[in-house]
């Protein structure tokens, strides 16, 4: 019983106001300082009902500099980038861009929740495109599930079959011709972590 | 050697642009400290000689600020200013002074932000041009 009781108080020493300032340097994200915490973003978000922190609370976390919570939450990985929050926000906060920004930092510092498949998928996708120049997110999902998760395989296999039969799924890796050109373009000297 | 700091003489009309600059102040907006504002009642009061005098005495740029079209406190002084400005612009151009150095802007009393934007923009452009130096006299080809 006692194990379920958790301290929720936040101490000011846990806050990192410098980090908040850094994050808000990015174009569009600077508007977080105008947020009035009205919750329109959460209300319009189709996925907020599954999130551990609603998007509004993520903005509050970032503003107050609670980096650990903001980077470790599930919210940023449940964001499907539908831009509904950004379009609705009465203060023009670019919330979708903020989510992307947090995802990047969470991946960089490996702070995403354990056993959460989305960041893994994103990285896999990133690598494949880097190498071959082509890939499809959906296709990768199906393929990964087919290959990696034996439990999911049972339910996924039937989609796979349907897709194969209708000519919509090929297990052959598509690639561009001039992969070298693409790699040269992407080979920018790494800048400071974004 | 410190960075070149352009000096800009600004003629602001009393009713719109001067008040806009006041508003920029009360709103604590920050902009480049390169303008020297001379208050006139109306942009229509700005005599072309004032502008030439400013360039002659070492100004790197001249900015005239008046009320928007139809908003002149004196009905149409700003139109007079505009007509004069076109003529003057041509003269200044023939003297070899770059276009960016002479500017006319309509800025209403509500547009403090615009003062900031215009001043910063003008300072940036003139800084890029460098100090106003008399060009070797070019043959004017009409």
């Amino acid at each position, binding site marked *: 019983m006692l194990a379920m009781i958790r301290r929720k108080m936040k101490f000011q020493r846990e806050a990192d106001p410098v980090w908040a300032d850094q994050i808000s340097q990015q*174009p569009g994200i600077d508007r977080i300082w105008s947020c009035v915490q009205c919750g329109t973003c959460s209300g319009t978000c*189709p*996925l907020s009902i*599954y999130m551990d922190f609603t998007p509004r609370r993520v903005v509050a976390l970032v503003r107050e500099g609670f980096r650990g919570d903001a980077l470790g939450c599930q919210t940023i990985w*449940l964001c*499907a*980038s*539908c*831009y*509904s929050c*950004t*379009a609705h926000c009465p203060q023009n906060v670019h919330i*979708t861009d903020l989510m*992307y920004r947090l*995802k*990047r930092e969470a*991946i960089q510092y490996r702070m995403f929740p354990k056993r959460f*498949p*989305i*960041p893994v*998928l*994103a*990285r896999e*996708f*990133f690598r494949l*495109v*880097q190498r071959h*120049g*082509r*890939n*499809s*997110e*959906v*296709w990768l*999902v*199906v393929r*990964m*599930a087919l290959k990696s998760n034996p439990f*999911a395989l049972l*339910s996924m296999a039937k*989609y796979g079959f*349907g*897709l194969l039969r*209708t*000519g*919509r*799924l*090929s297990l052959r890796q*598509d690639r*561009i011709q*001039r992969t070298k*050109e*693409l790699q*040269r*373009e*992407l*080979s*920018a000297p790494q*800048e400071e972590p*974004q | 050697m410190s960075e070149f700091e352009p000096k800009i003489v600004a003629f602001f009309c009393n009713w719109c642009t001067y008040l806009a600059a006041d508003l920029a102040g009360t709103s604590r907006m920050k902009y480049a400290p390169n303008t020297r504002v001379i208050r006139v009642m109306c942009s229509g009061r700005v005599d072309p000689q004032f502008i030439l005098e400013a360039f002659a005495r070492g100004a790197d740029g001249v900015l005239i600020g008046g009320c928007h079209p139809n908003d002149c406190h004196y009905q149409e002084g700003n139109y007079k200013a505009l007509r004069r400005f076109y003529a003057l612009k041509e003269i200044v151009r023939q003297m070899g002074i770059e276009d960016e150095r002479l500017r006319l802007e309509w800025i209403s009393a509500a547009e403090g932000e615009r003062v900031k934007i215009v001043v910063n923009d003008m300072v940036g452009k003139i800084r890029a041009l460098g100090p106003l130096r008399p060009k070797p006299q070019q043959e004017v080809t009409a």
Partner: protein
Amino acid sequence: MSTAQKPARRDGYVYFPGCALSANGIAYDESLRTLYRLLGLGLRELEDWNCCGATAYMSIDEGSAFLLSARNLSIAHRMGAEEVLAPCSACYLVLRKTQDYVAHHPSVRRKVTESLERAGLGPLNTVRVRHPLEVLYNDVGVARIQSLTTRKWRGGRIACYYGCQVVRPYDEVDKPYNPMRMDELMQAVGAPTTDYSLKTKCCGGSLTGTTAEVGLRLNYILLKEAARKGAQAIVTICPLCQFNLDVYQKEIARQSGERFDMPVLFFTQVLGWALGGEPRELGLHRSLAGQSLIQRWFAAKEEVEAYV
């Protein structure tokens, strides 16, 4: 509505299919090409195009995400195109966003320019990114599509589903709230549409695969509300939306215990058929859900009757 057709692009539209349209969304590709042929418009495929990076790339490295799009835009420019046609919502948005950021943020512009030079690629210049919905609506026009219609619609009522990234955050394809252009096009070929309140709600994208319980629930709501409003089919403009609603429909029905038999079509399939295209060249056989209805609605040997 003006019936005047703008002159077609000199060499037709430069077309960026993207990964989805070459795989699971191939029916979109087939129907788009067919429709363009029927309209007498040219389509040139973007030469050696690469993946747009979609949402995943933005989550890893924003800079590289812009570079992927920059290569495509640069190639389009080299092909002499002023405009590039991107039917996939993810591709459309990423290309459009790249342009926006290159135009407005000097740091992005600098990085993109340098990287293109390093790869021996040309400049971006101002290639305009366009979506077929908006091209059909603006360049071709509702009236012209109506006048070219040769088949009478025999299917049921349609819910037009626009999804998210085509109408947000940029509003050039259609309005972000209650868009109507697809509805107007469907009505022009005689297909009745429902008043569908969820037309710009998100399908969850790849969440159907990664967090199935969440993704499937979103799609369940989309299907259920369409049915509640009397729709017998959903028509989309996005390969991902089509994929989710079509491929997972059976699973959604199983989990919810409700029956769905809802064809999920691309708007280009409906328009292409109305203008005389054959079902196979429109990829109508590739849908999983509601296949029996599809076969009934889109009979191959429909006699050509003047309709208008």
